[in-house]
């Protein structure tokens, strides 16, 4: 046997180490980033929670024997009209206007009724801070309201209507 073949073990070890390092580098490069794709939805969730909270505050009556501001707004807004009170309250609660840090949130509010005998759905506009063009990245906040008047262009009362607000940031 020729002398000088003592490095065989070192060669094998070198190959093993190289293999481990290459696989490690591949895994690290493959992991793109630790900021996960799911994290981008956190902004949406925060906006949705803000809108839901604002609607919940608007549906809270000041005392037990009067309807909530939101129920009154739906009751006394004629069909097809915008309601300025809703706009003012909602923009105050979402910190779009008022004192303190100002958010650049836009919204579009509607309420949805069931037509009584035919069971169809009608959407009535309620208030809006800007027109929707379709390109906005909106989230939806909803609130059930029971109104004790004949709304929805029907004679039946009381009615349950669903208030829907689309929110987006500029």
């Amino acid at each position, binding site marked *: 046997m020729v002398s000088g073949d*003592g490095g065989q073990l070192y060669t094998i070890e070198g190959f093993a180490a190289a293999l481990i390092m290459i696989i490690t580098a591949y*895994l690290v490069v493959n*992991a793109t980033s630790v900021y996960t794709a799911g994290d981008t939805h956190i902004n949406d969730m925060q906006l949705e929670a803000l809108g*839901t909270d604002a609607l919940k505050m608007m549906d809270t009556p000041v005392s037990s024997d009067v309807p909530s501001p939101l129920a009154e707004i739906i009751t006394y807004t004629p069909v097809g009209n915008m309601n300025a009170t809703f706009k003012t309250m909602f923009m105050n609660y979402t910190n779009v206007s008022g004192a303190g840090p100002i958010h650049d949130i836009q919204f579009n509010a509607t309420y949805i009724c*069931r037509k009584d005998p035919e069971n169809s759905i009608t959407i009535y506009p309620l208030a809006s801070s800007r027109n929707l063009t379709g390109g906005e990245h909106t989230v939806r906040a909803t609130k*059930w309201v029971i109104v004790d008047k004949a709304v929805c262009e029907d004679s039946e009362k009381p*009615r*349950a209507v669903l208030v829907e607000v689309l929110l987006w940031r500029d």
Partner: protein
Amino acid sequence: MARLNDDAQWIVLMGFLVSFSFFFLALVINQATVVGQTTAESVIEFPKNDIRDVRHVIGESVRIPYPENVTVYNDITLLSMNRKSAVVDYRNFTLDNTTYIQIHYNNEVTEYNEYNWTP
């Protein structure tokens, strides 16, 4: 075989240990994306506010007397199906001065059932 100089075996061993630990760290980082996405998705899909809201409105509707509460019941179930993609059903009855209420909510991802009572 020529004599192998095996003086530094522990260095080789440490080298292996370090490279293996890097390997497993890389595996963990590699999986972090998948785990974060799945968690965030399940949080978004869970309709916490929807269930709270529908419970609240059903609780209110229980106080409405008989012929009128049918209209409100039809409003809630039809609008839930149309606008919230959720099947909502509820019924309430009074027995021995206690009002029992059953609430069912299902939006295909989350199912919620409740059986409750108020004096």
